């Protein structure tokens, strides 16, 4: 087995090799403190403000793709094999990038502190082929906070630069060098296991499951990371020292998405963005829900496996996946087992994951013609907020009659959980009149005893959950969603539905 004792990334066409770094070193500290590239800012150090956004270039199916990430919580070791583009790289020979020029022309900066991050997020949109409309721009900005401008001029600048037809959009430096960059990135690809440090403190990125097993056997307390969008905060916010970090991102096969007989199989290190792209095609509510998980930056780094494995009671994907009857595959100690996803969450902060075991994939049965699916998220803010209540349901229908109901909720208990009483009340019920489903709304009140916290009170959570179930049933019974929701409409009516 080859072991590489450094990481390598591409910067302005140059390979940067780093052989000596702490396992918890973040990309942001590396850029600002080691390389003195101070254009990238730290605003919050928890991946919520976007001031630290840089673009990561990767080869996806041989094509060069740029994605925005939060450098503040991205572990340095995990950018191995990527191109890292920072704000310093955009202007060439003193000439601003077309996007930067548009930002100046539109008066899109005031205090300027969020600006580099915003430019980098929008740069990844500029670098994405095709035209990009207002919704795409707003989504691309979902992880960038600006406290000064009110965003209007930023959105205008982005549209000016990114909404042109591709043949009218001037090639930037990056497009011009894409072929050379792809070659350089391919040159960084190897089949080596990365190990930096010693047995007491290390960053390891095994390339095969058996190597991972060896590491976990020797160090069962090592911290597993994929995108580190959660673990990053243990470091920057909780101040935890994590001496042994194992990155799963290099393990071959874990990043695969496949259609199987059981459904869609999503590998543990598939990013939330990549998973969303596939699931979004199944149902508009899945598209809308995944668009509201974290931000573009978080979805580019964060993985579906991580969103499940960290066991948060308010993780947004588990309720939807539980409603879809997804199962989880775990691997460890040489054995592979598959369990229904809902059984993985044992209690608050406790999951059915044994020492040395990792989540390898999630299998999601496809939605069938006789299924009706809905998913809703309630939060104080539409974009990049953690839900106070999540509701997802899949009804199996026989005409107007409900033959099976899977209702899963987040934020209502210590774990994502199904509403057993309401499900029972729905089976056999008719959708034809509201009277048919009313008992389920009452039953739901008996299914949960939610808590009060800074996101919402127990009372609100219950009322909203009942409201969401009522909304879902009304919609499935035929009420169009422009009469039941203020955003995330299912009809192809765009955002003018209410105007």
């Amino acid at each position, binding site marked *: 087995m080859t072991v590489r004792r450094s990481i390598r990334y591409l910067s302005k066409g140059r390979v940067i090799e780093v052989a000596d770094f702490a396992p918890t070193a973040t990309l942001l500290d590396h850029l600002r403190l080691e390389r003195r590239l101070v254009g990238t800012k*730290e*605003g919050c150090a928890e991946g919520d403000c976007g001031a630290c956004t840089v673009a990561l270039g990767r080869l996806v199916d041989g094509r060069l793709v740029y994605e925005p990430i939060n450098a503040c919580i991205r572990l340095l070791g995990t950018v191995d094999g990527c191109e890292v583009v*920072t704000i310093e790289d955009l202007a060439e020979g003193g000439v601003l990038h077309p996007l930067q020029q548009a930002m100046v022309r539109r008066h899109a900066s005031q*205090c300027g502190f*969020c600006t580099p991050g915003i430019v980098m997020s929008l740069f990844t949109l500029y670098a994405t082929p095709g035209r990009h409309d207002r919704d795409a721009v707003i989504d691309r900005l979902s992880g960038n906070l600006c*406290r000064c401008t009110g965003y209007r001029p930023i959105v205008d600048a982005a549209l000016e630069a990114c909404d042109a037809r591709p043949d009218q959009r001037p090639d930037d430096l990056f497009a011009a060098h894409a072929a050379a960059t792809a070659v350089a990135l391919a040159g960084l690809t190897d089949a080596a296991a990365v190990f930096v440090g010693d047995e007491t403190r290390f960053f390891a990125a095994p390339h095969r499951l058996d190597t991972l097993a060896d590491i976990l056997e020797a160090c069962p307390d090592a911290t597993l990371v994929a995108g580190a969008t959660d673990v990053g905060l243990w470091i920057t916010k909780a101040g935890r020292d994590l001496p042994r970090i194992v990155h799963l991102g290099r393990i071959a096969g874990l990043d695969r998405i496949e259609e199987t007989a059981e459904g869609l199989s999503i590998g543990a290190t598939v990013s939330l963005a990549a998973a969303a792209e596939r699931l979004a095609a199944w149902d508009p509510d899945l598209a809308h829900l995944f668009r509201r998980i974290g931000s573009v930056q978080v979805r580019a780094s964060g993985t579906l496996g991580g969103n499940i494995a960290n066991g948060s009671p308010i993780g947004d994907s588990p309720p939807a996946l539980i409603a879809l009857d997804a199962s989880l595959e775990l691997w460890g100690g040489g054995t592979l087992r598959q369990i229904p996803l809902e059984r993985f969450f044992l209690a608050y902060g406790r999951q059915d994951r044994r020492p040395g075991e990792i989540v390898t994939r999630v299998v999601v049965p496809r939605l069938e013609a006789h299924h009706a699916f809905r998913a809703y998220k309630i939060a104080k803010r539409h974009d*990049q907020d953690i839900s106070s209540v999540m509701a997802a349901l899949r009804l199996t229908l026989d005409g107007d009659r409900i033959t099976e109901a899977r209702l899963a909720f987040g934020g209502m208990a210590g774990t994502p959980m199904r509403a057993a009483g309401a499900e029972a009340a729905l089976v056999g019920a008719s959708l034809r009149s509201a009277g048919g489903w009313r008992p389920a709304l009452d039953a739901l009140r008996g299914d949960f005893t939610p808590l009060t916290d800074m996101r919402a009170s127990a009372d*609100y959570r219950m009322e909203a959950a009942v409201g969401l179930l009522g909304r879902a049933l009304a919609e499935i019974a035929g009420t169009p969603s422009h009469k*039941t*929701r203020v955003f995330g409409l299912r009809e192809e009516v765009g955002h003018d539905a209410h105007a």
Partner: protein
Amino acid sequence: MTRMPEFPPVAAPRSAVGAPLPHDSAARHVAGAAAYIDDLDEPAGTLHVAPGWCREVTRGRLLKVDLDAVRAHPGVVAVLTAADVPAVNDCSPSIGGDPVFAESEIQFWGQVVFAVVATSRASARAAARLAVFEVEAEKPAITVFDALDRGSDVLPPYEFRKGDAGAAIAAAPCRFADGLAIGGQEHFYLEGQIAFAHPREGDEILVLSSTQHPTEIQHVVARVLGLSDAAIVCECRRMGGGFGGKESQATQWAVIAALAARITGRSVKLRLDRDDDMVMTGKRHDFRVDWRVGTDETGRILGVDVDFLARCGASADLSQGVVDRTMFHADNAYDYPAARIATRRLLTDTVSATAFRGFGGPQGMLFAERMIDAVALRLGRDPLDVRKANFYPSVDAANHGVTPYGQVVDDCVLPDLVAALEQSSDYRARVAAIDAFNASSPILRRGIALTPIKFGISFTLTHLNQAGALVNVYSDGSVTVNHGGTEMGQGLYVKVAQVVAEVFAIPVAQVRITATTTGKVPNTAPTAASSGSDLNGMAAQIAAEEIRDRMAVVVAHLLGGEPRAVTFAGGRARLGDRDLSFADVARQCTLARVSLSATGFYSTPDITWDRAEAHGRPFYYYAYGAACSEVVIDTLTGEMRVLRVDILHDVGRSLNPAIDLGQIEGGFVQGLGWLTTEELVWDSRGRLRTHAPSTYKIPTAFDVPADFRVALWEDGGNRVASVHRSKAVGEPPVMLAISVHSAILRAIASLAPGVVPPLEAPATPEAILAAVRAVKHPVEGAPA
């Protein structure tokens, strides 16, 4: 009438003032080349500081602090406590009560007890968590009601009276009473608090601080260290946002960094972690308001009686001015024939509330607008009609109104401005369309509101209305300008440069803007109260005119003629048919031994304020504006979306319409956050639970409606001789967002005509649903 937000690129503006020039740092901002303090090179040996505090206790007696583990942590160079303060352990901007380090008492959750100085930021922060505290905990007072129970006021109660409000209400045909809780707001400047102190010659210290008030930093550092003001220089090139949060709240960090530099003899940087920043620094005041009003049958107000309970936190800080400004704006745009406006300034065991864009005004105005809405809903009238019936008379009316504090409102442009917006926003037709929509929509409800603002411009602490500037012209004709104002993104620097360029008739690019420093312009006011360009623009203009007048003498001498016949235009000085380039003029002045450096000083004329008598003219003028917002709410979940916003805002004659537009849009969206998504949650133990952007939600791009129409109102100019007849624009637009809250209220009210929904601020989904449920299922015996 109005100017729309499309600006053609202006290559060479005919005139510097009034041109929509970009922010002076725009190109550097977008390239990541604008340096903030944390970006500056660190001298060899630079040390880093982190504050230490007790996470377990909100209030209590500090018995013992064991710092052994802190000192033993690798990299730690020094640990500072109150015992290390050479002179005065207080960094208050006002009457005291803000210890740099807690001594015997912990007064709120997040109060700094000590500071760690270490060789790296990471080491300092890690060590700061290792202290062991022994504290005798006491039950904290968290809410205004806790403070009332305890009887703790941080400042004396204060009130305005006009006529006999009680009698007027008693005699009124219609009488209404209600109350409202108004939440606070975290500034969330993107650049957190930071200071970088460098020891210099002898006892001198240079402090780089992200501050709106370099003079206060200078003075307080000197006071705490027992040095003369002259030993300290405070400099600030730019802030990554301020919003009032760096008016008094930047001081403590600068003081600690300076103290550490003094003790260690090395350069010392202190940058707060975001969570520490949100826990340790003050926020907008939250309020409980209770009011009674008497009106006639049409909603014309006859008397108002209102009590504001302000939660001021653990010290006075700037609360006197803030809560006074709440009172100054409790009338908003409305002429109350009789009023009693009373305030309590309550001391709670929470971080001291502080300045925030609007400085208390927004809370006063939100009350006024809620009261008007309540009157309209109860009387079944359109709220806009009730608003119009109560406006102060127009600027050209025969008789002007008088505020509850005695100022004559003689510049009111609202009748015209609101009429224009009512028309351009198509208000009446949309009201009808919304009524029709609501009649057939059981789940979703829409609402619309058109609300005005009137905001008083001047510091109400009269002596702060002064500014100084230093203008230097070099012999090649290039110019530097320096003034007391600070740049926090609001575009002050470019506006002042435009004013100076206008005086000399040279391109703005020829005027170099330099960092604000107490070494060049002393004893300045904070950049606050929207006054930055009014005060500093005027001071710079005076300085530039002084130099230009000296130049005219030289030109007249050279070309033969009278100095007053010399004109400056297009980069040249002209006398008769002869002229000289500006650079030639500068060179000739140097040869003629004429000074090309001048200071300018400005103090706002005509303002008076007798606080004891609660009477005077505290404001030089008022800025006006209005917004019309439409929303849709979901009555099952309380979710809300803003559908359209129209704004018409009074900027006098704009110095820079592009900058002003940015202030209006940005201010509106910040106000939108305050009133909708931004909720500060303290638990029952007084711990702030929303101390990071993961839990505290400022607006994102999604929250801003696609249909957002903003226009500048320049018809009115400015009746007073402000700089180029412009009007201040920093704070007023925040309050345009009250239209959103009012529209939400109206959407809820559609469920039960005649009932006033008990909608609190911020209108989170939970607050909206609570108000929906209250009007759908009224509690037996509650007032209808």
